[in-house]
């Protein structure tokens, strides 16, 4: 098929909608995201096909492999539509029973349903689960709802309506105006108003302009963009095409991490299908507008998430940032005017065009509009991808949606913004989600990684971890970042090893400010944030390491004695069983003893002991 007309597009939409909403057809939405693939969803899918065939149900039951559902820790996941019955942790062996009960007898299989960690009750329907109930899917509106490898399913969910509207009815200034009204700000983390960025590039002179999509999701603990690309690649393409129309570009690149192979595969399929329908490429929908998109695979450099470095990388060079100005809106890729937005930003655009900027701005805070996607992980009960309205408190994110801290431990901090961000302690959890609000408490909104830490996490060790990351990923171009972060890392290592002095803490603070003021790019300027926020809220832990040579969270192995407190030991023998070095002797009903000569300080026994008896 080539060059669809608008009426043909509408016809496809109506036809597919009818078949999806057909009352007699049950759709089994099996999650095919990276997380569920890893836990075995492909085997479950094969078992589904086999069972459906065996029972001759092919006419009644459709199996749809979706992108990431979002509730990654409980995979493989399956949602039965209509009805939204939500199954977790499926195995191929469960399938015959599931089909028998769910499809034939129309009763959910109780043991395979989600169990609420608080009430201990099984919850059958997806939307009744707290993890989903507090969310507001906009960027993620199609997650788990469509087969990302079928363009028709995207079209049926109002896909490519925005393209028609934009190309047929709107001028570039109209597009920019709607974007400004929406208040959408860069979801990569910096929060620059998207409409303003597009307007700069629109006004730039130049025959050749580029639209770039940043899918180089490098922050550790962030998987929002991967999930969007895996679940709904067409909405990103549509968003990019709208941006292209706004600035008059005819070429786009999606710069994607090479680690995201499934996302790259699905994007490739989406581009091919969109081209076949004439929704991408030359003369889109016979409007005379051309736009082509290419995927560019990164090669593993965190700094390439920085816009000028990313452009250098697409040019085939070492991905090193350069000073701005000139800004990319004037001189970007190959010295041509370019805009760069991240995946989540683009995925919001089609809905803004359909429903209008005011609709988008109807939720949120004064300066931060709309919704934000977070990747919630770490020591929290419900791990996965969530989308919440701006203004939701961090407490609601961690406790209502996240279901609180796992294993009945205590909340210590939530880390936002990755290596450029900071830790938020308990007493600030009522801070609403918003760019300014989060910056005020020493973290940043960032791209959406939210890693929850319980009381076993040592904040000095976390500061060291992030500095190690930054030091490793510093491109080496400017001295403050290259040398300054190394010096900070050395000081933090010294403190973790119990060799720290008070003056080290002072030096850390001083270096932080110097690097912030003098580094070339965002990576360096924000590199000290994790250390500064740890010092601000967890100063007592630094002092304990330095003055008393103890690690209160018992994570820094150099500061541990590896002895067992006989008063706390319950003589259970778990430490004995976990020791890889045979350094622990234990007999039933006797206190275990660690042989320090054999101990390799691997921490296995620490992790196993439930009573905190090892110190």
């Amino acid at each position, binding site marked *: 098929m080539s060059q669809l007309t608008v009426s043909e597009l509408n016809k496809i939409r109506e036809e597919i909608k009818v078949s999806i909403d057909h009352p007699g057809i049950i759709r089994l939405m099996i999650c095919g995201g990276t*997380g569920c693939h*890893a836990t075995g969803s492909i085997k479950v899918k094969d078992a589904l096909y086999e069972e459906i065939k065996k029972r001759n149900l092919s006419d009644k039951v459709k199996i749809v492999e979706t992108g990431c559902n979002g509730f990654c820790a409980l995979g493989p996941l399956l949602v039965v539509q209509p009805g939204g019955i939500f199954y977790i942790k499926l195995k191929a062996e469960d399938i015959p029973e599931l089909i028998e009960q769910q499809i034939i007898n129309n009763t959910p299989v109780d043991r395979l349903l989600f169990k609420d960690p608080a009430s201990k009750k099984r919850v059958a329907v997806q939307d009744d689960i707290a993890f989903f109930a507090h969310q507001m899917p906009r960027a993620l509106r199609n997650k788990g709802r469509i087969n990302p490898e079928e363009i028709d399913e995207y079209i049926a969910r109002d896909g490519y309506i925005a393209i028609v509207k934009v190309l047929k009815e709107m001028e570039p200034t109209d597009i920019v105006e709607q974007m400004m009204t929406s208040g959408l700000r860069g979801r990569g983390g910096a929060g620059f108003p998207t409409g303003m960025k597009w307007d700069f590039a629109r006004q730039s002179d130049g025959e050749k302009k580029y639209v770039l999509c940043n899918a180089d*999701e490098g922050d550790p603990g962030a998987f929002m963009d991967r999930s969007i690309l895996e679940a709904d690649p067409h909405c990103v393409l549509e968003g990019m095409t709208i941006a292209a129309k706004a600035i008059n570009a005819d070429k786009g690149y999606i710069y994607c991490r090479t680690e995201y192979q499934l996302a790259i595969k699905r994007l490739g399929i989406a581009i091919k299908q969109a081209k076949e329908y004439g929704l991408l490429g030359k003369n889109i929908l016979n409007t005379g507008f051309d736009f082509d998109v290419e995927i560019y695979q990164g090669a593993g*450099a965190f700094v390439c998430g920085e816009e000028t470095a990313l452009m250098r990388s697409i040019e085939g060079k070492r991905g090193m940032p350069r000073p701005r100005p000139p800004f990319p809106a004037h001189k970007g890729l190959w010295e041509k005017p370019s805009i760069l937005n991240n995946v989540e930003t683009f995925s919001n655009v089609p809905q803004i065009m359909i429903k209008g900027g005011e609709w988008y701005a109807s939720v949120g805070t004064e300066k931060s509009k709309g919704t934000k996607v977070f990747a919630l992980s770490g020591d929290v009960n419900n791990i996965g991808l969530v989308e919440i309205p701006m203004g939701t408190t961090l407490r609601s994110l961690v406790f209502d949606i996240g279901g609180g801290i796992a294993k009945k431990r205590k909340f210590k901090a939530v880390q936002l913004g990755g290596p450029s961000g900071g830790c938020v302690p308990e007493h600030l959890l009522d801070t609403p989600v918003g760019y300014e609000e989060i910056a005020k408490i020493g973290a940043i909104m960032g791209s959406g990684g939210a890693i929850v*830490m319980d009381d076993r996490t040592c904040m000095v060790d976390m500061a060291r971890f992030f500095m190690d990351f930054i030091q490793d990923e510093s491109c080496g171009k400017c001295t403050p970042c290259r040398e300054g972060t190394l010096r900070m890392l050395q000081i933090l290592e010294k403190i973790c090893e119990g060799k720290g002095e008070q003056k080290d803490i002072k030096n850390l603070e001083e270096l932080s400010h110097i690097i912030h003021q003098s580094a070339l790019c965002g990576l360096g300027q924000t590199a000290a944030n994790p250390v500064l926020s740890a010092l601000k809220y967890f100063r007592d832990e630094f002092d304990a390491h330095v003055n008393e040579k103890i690690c209160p969270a018992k994570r820094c192995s150099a500061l541990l004695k590896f002895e067992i407190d006989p008063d706390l030991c319950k003589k259970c023998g778990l430490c004995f069983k976990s020791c890889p070095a045979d350094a622990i002797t234990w007999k039933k009903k006797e206190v275990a003893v660690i042989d320090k000569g054999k101990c*390799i300080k691997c921490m296995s026994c620490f992790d196993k002991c439930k009573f905190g008896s090892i110190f």
Partner: protein
Amino acid sequence: MTCFTKPHHEDIDHNMWQEIDIVIENNKNTPGAVITVLRECQAIVNYLPKELIDYIADGMNLPKSEVFGVASFYSLFSLKPKGRHTIKVCTGTACYVKGIREVINRIDGEYHLKEGGTTDDRRFSLEGVRCLGACGLAPVMVVGEDTHGEIAAENVIKSLENYK
């Protein structure tokens, strides 16, 4: 076809050179394609020997220094031979919080294999990678194409023993 003299190299056989030529031929006129060429050539040879980098530079008509600069900048590229199985351990925040360090120590204890290293018998290479984006399964290890979620120091060796 690219017809520069092919240097002799023990890890690159005749078929590999032919595949390398095809990669270069397909990309040599595309601006910025050198990263793609390096990636695809590494997929053929398993790593990027210096002789191969020079050959690519000639084929792409780029200065050798520039191609070497790119190859040494990006962590995807390895200038040293890699093992038959590459173990990628995720050292992202979520995996770190959930104990990847203990897993890495256990691998080292069993195979004498440090991050960035390869065992003497070229069975395993160990790479620490920054966030695989599968934080829901933390801690995560990828061996070849297989993702192993929720690994622990106690069971990591058992999983790895399946890779000979």
